[in-house]
């Protein structure tokens, strides 16, 4: 187990002279925490980045695609160094029923050259790299250390953290909580009053080993080009979705499952993946792949509506800890939101420390920054989309309706004449039990969000 010594950084005005002191403690060395620590260190703020895993990224998994353009300012030409698997040049959205698949497939070679668009990457590699950039900037990284609580002063202002090391307290002016979807820091500070399981999904994934040449043949890509396939349906009636991403010599195949829906039925997550893999439209892509790693993680799925308070007394919350994942159907992002919110938190913290006010009021600039960036702009605009995507109609009725419409459009029923699209659609809508009123309402919600 890699280990680092407890840091010793006494400051003349340290309120707890026996305790190491940093101006800012960042909890969690994921994308949010490492970007926050990088910004702070570059501004000359003393920062301790605490990671509970043996190395940054060791606790982290995700579907598989990162959109790193937010790093253009922090790490120019990041694509030269970032440990990615493949550049996504093909994006497919699939709608599955038991024996049908409708796929919209897009390819752009523009996404295979700098500055790129999305990339598949392993989080243990990528997060480790991001943390190494924070260290290079002067941040102190402390791994294998679990933060067990906050230390507050008489006024209720956060002024340190407790860790599970012997003599493990660290004093600070303020804390940035980047401790992930279960954020115990935000919960302890009372920023997360409403914990509704319906706001969370479980992501479960298999990393399947296949040779590069087999992957490139099956997915019609070359060199470092890669494919991102998002799937609606195929989760055995559990609200959620599926995905396939190409890595260099592995595939990421998995499902995302709404917690109450998963808990209410009898099929286990790995059985749902097995079922997805056996679909006639999926099996030829994945067969022969040996499971190299099975993994799982929670996803804060509900977006804006589930976000905690982002600012406390001496405390800011960023990344998944602040529920900043964007699960908006055609847009499935999170790492970029984590990085951007971490950077915004750090800029706010640096200003507040200079101004000598790290109270909630002194940190109000954080939310302003997020509002004027894509982070809360996108979440506000798309606030109703996560609920729509996971709704029963979108999950259980529309896939069958869409697939049946397409099947009939392309089916040649001679000697019957072609029925016409409007008739097909009307009949299939009725057959799927979809009321026009509901369809119009969902269409309107979609238009308002996506439009």
């Amino acid at each position: 187990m890699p280990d680092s010594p407890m840091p010793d950084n006494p400051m003349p005005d340290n309120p707890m002279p026996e305790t190491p002191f940093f101006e800012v403690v960042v909890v969690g060395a994921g994308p949010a925490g490492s970007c926050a620590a990088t910004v702070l260190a570059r501004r000359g703020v003393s920062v301790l980045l605490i990671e509970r895993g043996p190395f940054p990224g060791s606790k982290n998994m995700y579907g598989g695609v990162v959109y790193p353009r937010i790093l253009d300012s922090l790490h120019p030409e990041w694509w030269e160094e970032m440990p990615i698997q493949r550049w996504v040049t093909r994006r497919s959205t699939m709608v599955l029923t038991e024996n049908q698949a409708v796929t919209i497939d897009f390819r752009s070679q523009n996404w295979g050259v700098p500055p790129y668009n999305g990339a598949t990457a392993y989080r243990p590699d990528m997060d480790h790299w991001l943390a190494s950039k924070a260290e290079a900037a002067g941040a102190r990284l402390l791994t294998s250390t679990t933060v067990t609580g906050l230390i507050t002063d008489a006024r209720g202002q956060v002024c340190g953290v407790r860790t599970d090391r012997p003599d493990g307290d660290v004093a600070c002016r303020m804390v940035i909580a980047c401790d992930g979807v279960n954020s115990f820091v935000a919960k302890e500070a009372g920023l997360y009053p409403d914990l509704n399981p319906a706001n969370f999904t479980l992501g479960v994934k298999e990393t399947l080993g296949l040779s590069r040449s087999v992957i490139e043949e099956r997915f019609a890509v070359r060199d470092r080009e890669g494919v991102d396939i998002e799937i609606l349906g195929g989760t055995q009636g559990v609200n959620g979705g599926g995905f396939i991403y190409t890595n260099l010599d592995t595939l990421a195949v998995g499902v995302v499952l709404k917690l109450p829906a998963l808990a209410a039925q009898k099929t286990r997550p790995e059985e749902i993946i097995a079922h997805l893999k056996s679909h006639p439209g999926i099996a030829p892509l994945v067969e022969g792949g040996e499971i190299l790693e099975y993994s799982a993680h929670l996803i804060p799925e509900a977006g804006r509506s589930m976000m905690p308070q982002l600012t406390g007394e001496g405390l800011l919350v960023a990344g998944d800890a602040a529920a900043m994942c964007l699960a908006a159907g055609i847009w499935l992002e999170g790492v970029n939101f984590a990085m951007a919110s971490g950077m915004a938190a750090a800029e706010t913290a640096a200003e507040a420390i200079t101004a000598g006010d790290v109270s909630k009021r002194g940190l109000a600039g954080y939310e302003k920054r997020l509002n004027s960036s894509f982070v809360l702009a996108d979440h506000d605009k798309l606030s109703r989309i996560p609920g729509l995507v996971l709704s029963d109609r979108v999950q259980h009725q529309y896939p069958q309706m869409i697939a049946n419409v397409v099947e009939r459009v392309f089916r040649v029923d001679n000697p019957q004449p072609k029925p016409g699209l409007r008739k097909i659609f009307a009949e299939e809508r009725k057959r799927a039990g979809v009321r026009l009123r509901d369809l119009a309402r969902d269409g309107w919600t979609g238009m308002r969000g996506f439009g």
Partner: protein
Amino acid sequence: MTQDNLRWPEISFEDRIGTARFDVGERAHITVDSRICADCSTRECVVACPAKLFVPTADGGILFNYEQCFECGTCYMVCNREGAIAWTYPDGGHGVVFSQT
């Protein structure tokens, strides 16, 4: 559609979870109060835990093992019984270590 058309052997759960690496700590980071579980008929944890750590026993209890845990939080989120699951992170440096995900 059945599993019959799978062209690869489905692996046992033991082999599946064995693909992930765990540096198991001495302290059980999650504890389950089986007296509370004995009264629970819904058993959400049994189906939802991706690591299959909650196993019903013949006498109507729940057998729980913290060792091969993804630390995801699903169990405490889906549990309907107040106080049944006490959930913390493993001690620093311990627990799951992902590599290709």
